[in-house]
């Protein structure tokens, strides 16, 4: 095979892969703007926003999206604060247990959270926390912490200690130094961790599905599932519109941090801690 033929073959193969990956998307995009959508991705002969109008009601999508924002948002904020605090001594002091602690965190990121939910559910039941959104947020925060502390420490390591010295000379303690000097300097890193946690929880289905009791507390992840299992066979267009409205924030936020996350895949055998 000549060089030119090989290059053409590679391009064609990539185009084929792109088409195959786009296949399952097409239905959602097309069905959402057709009032009489069917399960097949038929060419859009009509265009209407009726499906969006139909699902944009308080119970169908507005309240679930607000719940999603509250749950994911408070988890992200709490995680960033708690992980940021933990990262300070890990980044700034010589601690004898630092290496084992960081390795334990990395180890924990690999454990299946799905399995942890069985004892968490039983524990919530026993302590009357079943159905409590704040209790669930604390659990989600704990499950996001290992990875977030790891990332926060890395970003904090990037802020030179010398920049803090002026603050120390002025008599600032670690907290003032963290709040007024280190925090602002690593703001992009904090944003990356916060968005990362937010997007992760935005798609989280299992935890709210088993830990929350009432439909009006459920985030969009669970509501879209309920809608899908109840009306998925009949109201295709509305399901598609619901899916798009629910997915859009995750996509927008991913694009926002894409540049920073790209580097996190270069672990050709080594990890900076």
């Amino acid at each position, binding site marked *: 095979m000549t060089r030119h033929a090989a290059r053409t073959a590679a391009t064609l193969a990539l185009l084929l892969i792109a088409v195959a990956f786009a296949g399952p998307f097409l239905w959602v995009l097309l069905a959402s703007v057709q009032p009489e959508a069917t399960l097949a991705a038929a060419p859009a002969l009509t265009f209407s926003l009726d499906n969006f109008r139909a699902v944009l009601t308080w119970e169908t999508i507005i309240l679930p999206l607000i719940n999603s924002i509250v749950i994911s948002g408070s988890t992200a904020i709490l995680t960033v604060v708690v992980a940021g605090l933990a990262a300070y001594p890990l980044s700034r002091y010589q601690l004898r247990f630092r290496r084992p602690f960081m390795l334990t965190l990395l180890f924990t990121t690999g454990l299946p959270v799905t399995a942890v939910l069985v004892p*968490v559910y039983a524990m919530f039941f026993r302590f009357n926390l079943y159905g409590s959104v704040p209790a669930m947020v604390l659990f989600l925060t*704990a499950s996001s912490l290992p990875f977030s502390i790891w990332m926060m420490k890395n970003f904090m390591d990037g802020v030179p200690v010398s920049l803090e010295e002026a603050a120390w000379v002025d008599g600032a303690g670690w907290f003032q130094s963290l709040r007024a000097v280190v925090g602002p300097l690593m703001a992009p890193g904090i944003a990356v961790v916060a968005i990362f946690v937010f997007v992760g929880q935005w798609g989280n289905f299992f935890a709210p599905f088993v830990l929350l009791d009432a439909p009006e507390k459920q985030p969009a992840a669970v509501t879209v599932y309920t809608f899908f299992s109840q009306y998925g066979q009949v109201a295709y267009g509305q399901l598609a519109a619901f899916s798009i409205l*629910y997915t859009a924030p995750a996509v927008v936020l991913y694009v926002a941090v894409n540049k920073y996350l790209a580097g996190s895949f270069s672990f050709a055998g080594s990890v900076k801690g």
Partner: protein
Amino acid sequence: MTIATAPSPPATQAPSGGPSRRGALRRLLPLVPSFVLLALFLAGPILWSVYVAFTNETLTGSASVNSTFVGLDNFVRMFGDPNFLNSFLLTFVFVIGSAVIGQNTLGLVIALLQRGRGRLLRSVVNGVVIAAWVMPEIVAAACWFSFLAEDGTLNTVLGISQEWLYTAPMVAVILANVWRGTAFSMLVYSAALSEVPADLVEAAAVDGAGPLRRLVHVTLPLIRRSIMANLMLITLQTLASFGLIYALTGGGPGTASQTTPLYMYEQAFRYFEIGYGSAIALVLLVIGALFSLVYLRLIKVEDA
């Protein structure tokens, strides 16, 4: 997924004017909130599940008030339970099919094909592959539900009538998970391939090695650590996969696609068999822990 970005750390000693002079315990104060949350909501439940797995705890009936120690009963029951063994086998098939073979191979192939291609083509391919990964798993399930339905897109394109979710549920969930997860492997391999020195590959070409020999004898050995690390990570992500399968098939028809997480869900959350459910959860945790340890051995952790 893991792994971090920032530039290498500075010397971690605080200068003498800094907080290093204060009491050792006060220096650890900022770690307290993390410790409390991790202990109460992560370590605590895991340790508790170890205890409960050896009791007959349920949320209903008499055992909900007085659970008693039953020794290895739950584990004996599990390994004699055809439904559990079925779920275990299906989980194995799901992990091997969708992660080890599907995502891993397809991710590597896409990353290899993309080398040296135009920017536009690369962005288009990256765009659609990553979009499948970014979308929430329930939406991914809705996409595949319609794609595979009897009057859905795939049958329309192929011109046949086939109820894929009933006739081939495992094929359906494996395909859906390959579609959803390939982006991760692709990104890992793109990063790994970008660090392969071009002159090594060129030298092999000058020596007369064809593209396949260059791949097998030069490129793949150079990125073998990434391959192993990627295999561990995607196995961990796939092992406990719940939402995608649950929304697509519900484990059915019957138990034809009921992987272990779905079986655990049924026992613990539908039948409230907390003791038995915890024993199943413990098996998943132990398998996850083993893969996680292998992953830690594979990567070199610098200055943790």
